[in-house]
């Protein structure tokens, strides 16, 4: 809320105050896999930052580091400006739905609010609104195993957004959705973002999606996972169907695509040689 | 030699001395038996083995169970009574108002084992007004008795009083049940009718051997028997054994009354009948049992071994 006031009007490249900087961050898992190596990345308040990169390049790992669910084995995370950033201000959409299997859809979405002490009755309107946003009205009482893959993912998205977090970390939230629904949700998300000016770090596999949504696209390369190139998407917001069909968009997509191809080809390791 | 097995109702101790003696010094072997003694324990019951014919002889506690067997149509016979007196005592703390038999029922707690609860305790209830609600099981550890001055506990006159005196530091009052009318034979030798019918000589040999064994154990050199006992039950101490023997002699447990003439193991019809009548009167057993089926005098009262008494 305060951010909205403190914030410069909607702009393309992040000009907000710095929220978080990853400085030389590396992550080596105990089995010896280097998931991330020497990642430098600055995230500004109000950024819509997309992470793009081949499978296994460390996108999810980066998100987990940012959320504080994992700690870097080298380097550091600098939450300057909000030195003790309250992690319950983070909304996280995991790559897998991660729902409580024993709770129904309503309870799953209610959960974050419940943990903050909001009663069922009080939470109900908010929860129902979020469910409507992800087109799940009518499924409040279904348990996860009665849902399709995409529906589960949408419950997960609703849950992450229900608290109106200041920072939203999303790990391929729309991967399991058809393109039309995906576009709709893209638009919804952008609208919301412009209204509330939270910060988004968005992992996606779709070049189109990343360009359409974000003001910055960070392309990562694998083995070891690292930042390959950063692309500023300087198109103005609001973006809509017109933007989606504009030549600017196409050009940016091509550019991002080329960078991604570069990233994939730069990947060391034997398994890409054959192709 | 014919192999036979005798099951006792407790871990090896001096109260089984006569059998160990006869087994150790060759008395059984002399009349053709190779006896194995199978020791029992607090939760071990060998009687079913006897019923199923897996063992040949079993050590009965008192006559009541023999009566039960008749009642259940079980062809089980008492062939000899090693103890003339039930060595069972009730112990109480001195100076606690529990110094007289009549007062014992006022104790806070009666620590009585399961078997006791089914036999002499029934008699204590009906005959002397003991309160069944005050009974707690005796798990064969006298510590609760020592700890609770207002409690009474069962025990063998030959056994518990020693441990209580040694560890509790006081001499408990001892009330020998036999002195108050519970005049059953004890530590009997039980066998099945089939054994008596088919192998009377084996029964005779075992009864005679046991009698001789007891004489030798009580009055002769019992070192070998004690060694055998300690082998089976390494926890028992020499002092304890000595105490038990002394008590058996002192109270005439094994050798007193009828045995003077009839020899160890003696039983008489009159005595069994009189005990049965008492138990009927006390409503411990029903009055329609044909107790003649519970024993036979065919193998005892022959004065066997009296000459060994010194």
């Amino acid at each position, binding site marked *: 809320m305060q951010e909205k006031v403190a914030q410069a009007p909607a702009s393309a490249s992040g000009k907000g105050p710095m929220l978080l900087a990853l400085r030389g961050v590396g992550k080596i898992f105990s089995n010896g896999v280097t998931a991330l190596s020497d990642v430098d990345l600055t995230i500004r308040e109000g950024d819509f930052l997309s992470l793009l990169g081949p499978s296994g390049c460390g996108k999810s790992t980066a998100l*987990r580091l940012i*959320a*504080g*669910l994992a700690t870097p084995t080298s380097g550091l995370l600098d939450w300057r400006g909000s030195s003790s950033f*309250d*992690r*319950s201000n*983070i909304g*996280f959409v*995991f790559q*897998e739905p*991660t729902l*409580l*299997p*024993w*709770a129904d859809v309503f309870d799953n979405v209610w*959960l*974050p609010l*419940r*943990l*903050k002490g909001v009663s069922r009755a009080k939470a109900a309107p908010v929860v129902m609104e979020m469910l409507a946003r992800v087109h799940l009205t009518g499924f409040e009482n279904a*348990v*996860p*195993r009665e849902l399709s893959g995409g529906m589960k993912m949408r419950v997960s998205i609703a849950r992450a957004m229900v*608290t109106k977090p200041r920072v939203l970390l999303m790990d391929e939230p729309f991967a399991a959705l058809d393109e039309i629904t995906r576009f709709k949700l893209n638009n919804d998300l952008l609208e919301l973002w412009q209204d509330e000016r939270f910060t988004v770090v968005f992992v996606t596999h779709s070049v189109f999606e990343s360009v359409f949504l974000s003001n910055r696209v960070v392309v990562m390369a694998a083995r070891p996972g690292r930042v390959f190139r950063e692309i500023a998407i300087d198109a103005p917001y609001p973006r809509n169907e017109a933007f989606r069909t504009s030549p600017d968009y196409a050009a940016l997509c091509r550019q991002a695509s080329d960078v991604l191809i570069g990233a994939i080809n730069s990947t060391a390791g034997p398994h890409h040689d054959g192709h | 030699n014919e192999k036979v097995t005798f099951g006792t109702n407790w871990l090896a101790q001096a109260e089984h001395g006569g059998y160990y003696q006869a087994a150790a010094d060759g008395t059984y072997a002399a009349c053709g038996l190779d006896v194995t003694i199978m020791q029992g324990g607090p*939760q071990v*019951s060998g*009687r*079913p083995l006897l*019923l*199923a014919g897996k063992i040949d002889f079993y050590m009965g506690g008192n006559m009541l*169970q023999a009566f*039960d*067997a008749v*009642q*259940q*149509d*079980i062809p089980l016979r008492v062939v000899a009574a090693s103890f003339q007196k039930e060595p069972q005592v009730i112990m109480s703390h001195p100076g606690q108002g529990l110094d007289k038999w009549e007062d014992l029922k006022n104790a806070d707690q009666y620590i009585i084992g*399961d*078997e006791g609860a*089914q*036999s002499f305790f029934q008699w204590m209830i009906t005959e002397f007004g003991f309160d*069944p*609600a005050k*009974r*707690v*099981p005796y*798990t064969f*550890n006298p*510590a*609760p008795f020592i*700890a*609770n001055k207002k409690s009474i506990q069962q025990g063998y006159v030959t056994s518990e009083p020693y441990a209580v005196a040694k560890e509790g530091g006081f001499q408990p009052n001892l009330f020998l049940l036999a002195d108050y009318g519970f005049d059953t034979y004890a530590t009997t030798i039980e066998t099945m009718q089939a054994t008596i019918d088919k192998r009377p000589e084996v029964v005779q040999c075992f009864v005679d051997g046991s009698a001789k064994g007891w004489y030798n154990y009580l009055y002769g050199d019992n070192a070998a028997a004690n060694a055998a006992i300690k082998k089976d039950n390494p926890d028992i101490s020499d002092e304890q054994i000595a105490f038990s023997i002394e008590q058996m002699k002192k109270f005439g447990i094994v050798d007193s009354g009828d045995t003077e003439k009839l020899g160890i193991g003696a039983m008489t019809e009159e005595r069994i009948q009189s005990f049965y009548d008492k138990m009927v009167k006390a409503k411990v057993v029903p009055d329609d049992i044909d107790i003649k089926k519970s024993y036979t005098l065919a193998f005892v009262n022959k004065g066997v071994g009296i000459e060994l008494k010194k």
Partner: protein
Amino acid sequence: MTAIEEHALTLDPEEARRVRQERLERIGRWLLPLAIMILAIWLWDRICVWNDIPKYILPRPGVVLQTLFDDAGLLFSSLLVTLKITFLSLLLAVIGGVGLAVLFAQSKWVEMSFFPFAIVLQVTPIVAIFPLINIYVDNQTTKLLLCAWIVAFFPILSNTTLGLNSVDRNLRDMFKLNGATRWQQLRYLRLPAAMPYFLGGLKIAGGLSLIGAVVAEFVAGAQGQSSGLASRIIEAGYRLNAPRLFAALILISFTGILIFLVLSLISHLILRRWHESALKQER
């Protein structure tokens, strides 16, 4: 509709087999166990007859059943006494087991420090420590409960601890991220997730608390007049009254089976919406 279905049956023999089997299964599910039970009883009878086993060793089922009828008053009032201890001790086992498991789940320290004591309780023979209990506990019911509880609580503790530690990592992360307190994490995540394990432990503990109640009475004795099945068993054993002994045993067995069925039902009702072990295979 039926025509189409029949058509399907001819078309897909595997499918046909499945449908037939399902129908059979629905009947067999209740009939077969009953048949086996009857067969077992018949076999018991035959064994007694074939081997000429005297009734004071192993009475024939008919005799036992007769006794069960004749002594019904005595036996069932005893059963009630035993059942009281059983259920109370099961309740205590649940409270104690889950309580301890929750405590242990708080930190590895606590678990490592106090689990050994739980094991000591589990492996200590009650007979051996009963004198101590007898000296320091006055109330008879308390003594019985304590003994039965010692027998029954461990499976619940062990299984619940396992369950609390088996929570999906991502869900745990999700809770952490949402700033859940320890208590909330327990209440909304770990306890529900541990449910299947806990209920498994409960099913074990159900039988154990019954046997615990019997053993407790063996060790701690009857309570005045109102003596439970253990006293009946001891007495019958001492009196060489085998039919009554077996009648009491049969009563215990059926009670055990009943407790198990009830606990299974509870377990099914709690888990049926989400846990694999309780889900109907929907095809």
